[in-house]
């Protein structure tokens, strides 16, 4: 029904094709513009630049560098065996920072591949190290800032719709944001979560980083849809497609989207970007993509592109890049040291956080186990308590 307001729903559709050939609705008829402000060659139209002050422009840069340094350091300590595994975000910095820069503290955020947004919302690098070391305090810390990381791909979309529903009931001046990957769009959970937001008109913002791969699966084979943005049409939700290597375009798009969302309309943003590193430290991307392709995208480095912009604006001189990196490295060193201080935790932690009150069977299991650990210290020959993941 195109007239959603009519009292009696529309009559059997009237033929607007005059009884001719069967006509197909096809994606080839769809034109999906991609928002861009700074072109790959660094050029841009002054008038399109978002209205930020100098400090904000510089902040965008600092956060992108933070993202890059953090990934580098994490990959590094993982190689040294000080981390279970890690998913680097190198290449996606503009996409991640440009979007998260628009969020406010009351907003909720559920992410996939995007770690720095947690820092932007008040969590610490230490918290993130703990998370990747498999220490529950990481997620606890994120939760304090209305943020969570979802591991089961797509599973968080219904949660985000539910959070947005709560905001809607509250008339809250906030949005619930889900980051998701290209792969996540194929899941039933994502579908149902986004559809719920669309059908109830919930203040949810869906930010999809199309980084071209779901582990080894290229987006072209993930779905028959040429763009991810067009998937929003399935929910009657408006969408923006944006160049994910252009931090200003991402900021501009998500800023606009966030405003619409606060007015009660969910919005879907596809950010076209690229994961330059492996899926995680356990992955070997040479099995499924060419060096040539990676080099091609290396040449579209988002930080480099933004640097061009800062230079054109005369802001570059305000940044001492090496000092910025040094500062972040120092922050990381400190975070790592703090994380390394983590005490071994009591075995009761496994049990006590499951329910508000420990039920009898669980209390019994805990007591038995504590007793066993006391009686059989040889248990510790088998248990690696891994405060370093």
């Amino acid at each position, binding site marked *: 029904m195109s007239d959603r307001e009519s009292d009696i729903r529309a009559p059997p559709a009237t033929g607007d094709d005059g009884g001719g050939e069967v006509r197909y609705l096809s994606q080839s008829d769809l034109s999906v513009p991609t928002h861009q402000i700074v072109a790959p060659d660094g050029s841009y139209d002054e008038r399109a630049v978002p209205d930020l002050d100098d400090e904000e422009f510089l902040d965008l840069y600092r956060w992108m560098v933070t993202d890059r340094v953090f990934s580098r350091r994490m990959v590094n300590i993982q190689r040294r065996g000080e981390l279970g595994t890690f998913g680097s975000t190198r290449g996606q910095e503009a996409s991640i920072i440009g979007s998260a820069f628009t969020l406010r503290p009351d907003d*909720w955020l559920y992410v996939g591949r995007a770690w720095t947004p947690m820092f932007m919302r008040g969590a610490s690098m230490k918290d993130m190290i703990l998370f990747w070391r498999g220490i*529950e*305090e990481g*997620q*606890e810390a*994120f*939760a*304090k800032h209305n943020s*969570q990381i979802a591991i*089961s791909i797509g*599973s*968080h*979309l*219904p*949660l*985000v*719709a*539910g*959070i*947005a*529903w*709560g*905001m809607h*009931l*509250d008339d809250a001046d906030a949005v*619930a944001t889900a980051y998701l990957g290209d792969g996540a769009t194929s899941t*039933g*959970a994502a579908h*149902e*979560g986004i*559809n*719920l937001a669309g*059908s*109830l008109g919930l203040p949810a913002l869906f930010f999809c980083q199309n980084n071209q791969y779901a582990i080894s699966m290229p987006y072209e084979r993930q779905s028959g849809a040429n763009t991810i943005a067009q998937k929003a049409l399935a929910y009657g939700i408006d969408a923006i497609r944006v160049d994910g290597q252009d931090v200003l375009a991402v900021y501009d798009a998500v800023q606009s989207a966030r405003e619409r969302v606060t007015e009660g309309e969910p919005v879907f943003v596809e950010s076209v970007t690229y994961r330059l590193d492996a899926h995680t430290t356990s992955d070997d991307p040479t099995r499924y993509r060419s060096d040539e392709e990676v080099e091609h995208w290396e040449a579209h480095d988002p930080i480099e592109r933004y640097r061009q912009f800062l230079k054109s604006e005369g802001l570059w001189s305000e940044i001492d890049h090496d000092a910025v990196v040094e500062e972040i490295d120092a922050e990381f060193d400190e975070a790592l040291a703090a994380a390394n201080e983590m005490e071994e935790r009591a075995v009761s*932690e496994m049990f006590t*956080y*499951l*329910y*508000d009150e420990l*039920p*009898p*069977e*669980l209390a019994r299991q805990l007591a038995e186990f504590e007793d066993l650990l006391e009686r059989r210290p040889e248990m510790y020959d088998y248990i690696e308590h891994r405060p370093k993941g």
Partner: protein
Amino acid sequence: MQATIVQAVNDALHTEMGRDDRVVVFGEDVAESGGVFRATDELLEEFGSKRVVDTPLSEIAIVGGAAGMAMYGYRPVAEIQFSGFLPPAFDQLVTNASRIRWRTRGELSAPMVVRMPYGAGVRALEHHSESLEGAYAHIPGLQVVVPSTPADTKGLLTAAIRDPDPVLFMEPKRIYRSIREEVPEGEHEVPIGEAAVRREGEDVTVVAWGSMMPPTLEAVEEGGVDAEVIDLRSISPMDTETVVESVKKTGRCVVAHEGPRTLGVGSEIVARINDEALMYLEAPIERVTGFDTPVPLLSMEDFYFPHPPRILDGIEAALAD
């Protein structure tokens, strides 16, 4: 007030929505039409379209959405139209609802209720008759509650809504309207995790819940057995103590349930009695259960779930040796 089980559900929802405006009811066909069993009748009229909401046909979104809304601070009571349609949302139970508190070390939690009619015997189509509590009670962090009387229905649903953690509330639809009894007006809470002794006895302990209670009581009556009949009410957490103490007294036990036998809740009860009262057992514990098959389509569904003669047969077997 006199009420049936389904009326007690409705009453609990009315009462709790009136008491706490964080309580929100949603699901398929719950608002405009008041639910396919009328369990949510008149809620829309009384509490308006913001708090009583028809959702799209999407169980994943219903359960996951409830978890999100609960994390945010509301008290969602979501309906799954029939228990056979909860499996699509299994992942949201395992991956999200049951773990929010655990994952965030108590920083967030998911005080939500998923209610659904379960069980066979109402001449419905395939998938409308499941009793899979055995699978759901295996999920750490998820509470599973099954009332068998109108008063308990109101009291346990009230407790479930007020509980700080997620509860799967399974309503015995075969007896939705077949029992009518006095149900307390206004607020009424029955604690989760406590079994009820429906009948005291010395010779054998019979454990059942939900729609198996009437046939169980009938079997005991019919057989003239001096049985202690326990209505488990909470499958998870389970009131092991009440069961074990009774078995220590009687030395014999029968468990009757409607779900499949293998890895059904009966197995867990046997295992717990084994843990704590094995040496009191004078005979094997009898499991009188649904079979390890899907519930037959309606023309033969009556064969599937235990009736009084089958339960009595189990009781007599337990008494035999």
